[in-house]
């Protein structure tokens, strides 16, 4: 059974000739903005199996009874991969993430019930996972949409005085 090392960005290593550079898919679009934080390099590990069996010191977002996303600092990915139960998939590179402020901005991005978060649903026309902390929101979505989502989010913020 392969351990799928090739999925985990944190397994890249610098050798004498090579120094792999992690690049966020939001880097270009968010360059020069302070209103939106780039969370793309956060560790994101998907667990398939019995979600209730997860017992780690990290933020666990339950998507279905058999599927969850565990959020952790990048440095903690290796440890969590080893400790999490079930089928463990490193989605750190798969999902881009950003954090923004304001309920109105969110209402212009999604139809999701902002009182019912976290939830998986449509944000800016793409599938996403949304978490809420007071008036701050974190959104995770497929990295291939990152540049586009970044543009939409900045445009939405521009439209709100």
């Amino acid at each position, binding site marked *: 059974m392969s351990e799928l090392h090739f999925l985990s960005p944190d397994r890249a290593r610098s050798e004498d000739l090579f120094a792999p550079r992690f690049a966020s898919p939001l880097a270009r679009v968010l360059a020069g903005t302070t209103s939106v934080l780039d969370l793309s390099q956060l560790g994101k590990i998907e667990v398939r199996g019995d979600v209730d069996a997860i017992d780690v010191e990290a933020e666990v977002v339950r998507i279905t009874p058999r599927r969850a996303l565990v959020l952790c600092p990048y440095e903690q990915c290796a440890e969590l991969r080893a400790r999490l139960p079930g089928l463990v998939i490193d989605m750190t590179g798969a999902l881009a993430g950003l954090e923004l402020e304001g309920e109105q901005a969110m209402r212009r991005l999604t139809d999701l019930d902002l009182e019912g978060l976290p939830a998986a649903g*449509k944000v800016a026309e793409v*599938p996403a996972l949304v978490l809420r902390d007071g008036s701050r929101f974190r959104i995770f979505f497929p990295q291939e949409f990152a540049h586009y989502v970044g543009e939409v989010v900045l445009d939405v913020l521009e439209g709100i005085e």
Partner: protein
Amino acid sequence: MSFLLNCPNCGPRDVNEFACAGEVTSRPKALPDLRGLTDYVYFRRNVAGVQREWWYHRFGCEIWFLAERDTRTNEVLKTELPQASAGTSSAG
């Protein structure tokens, strides 16, 4: 279409978050004759009334589920997770 659909996992959501794969059909258990195969692959009942359908929460939790929907009013009477090995499928 703007009705709400109750994802068995996520609760009521705008129908635009879902994909519909049409009415539930039944895959023959064994090699059907040509007529049986054609019926299964191409023919649909297309009822004006309550229909059992496959839905996928494409923008949400990404699960497939079954819904009973009145095709005349878009009223969704029931949604549920499929029973494993229900033997139902569609040819797509």
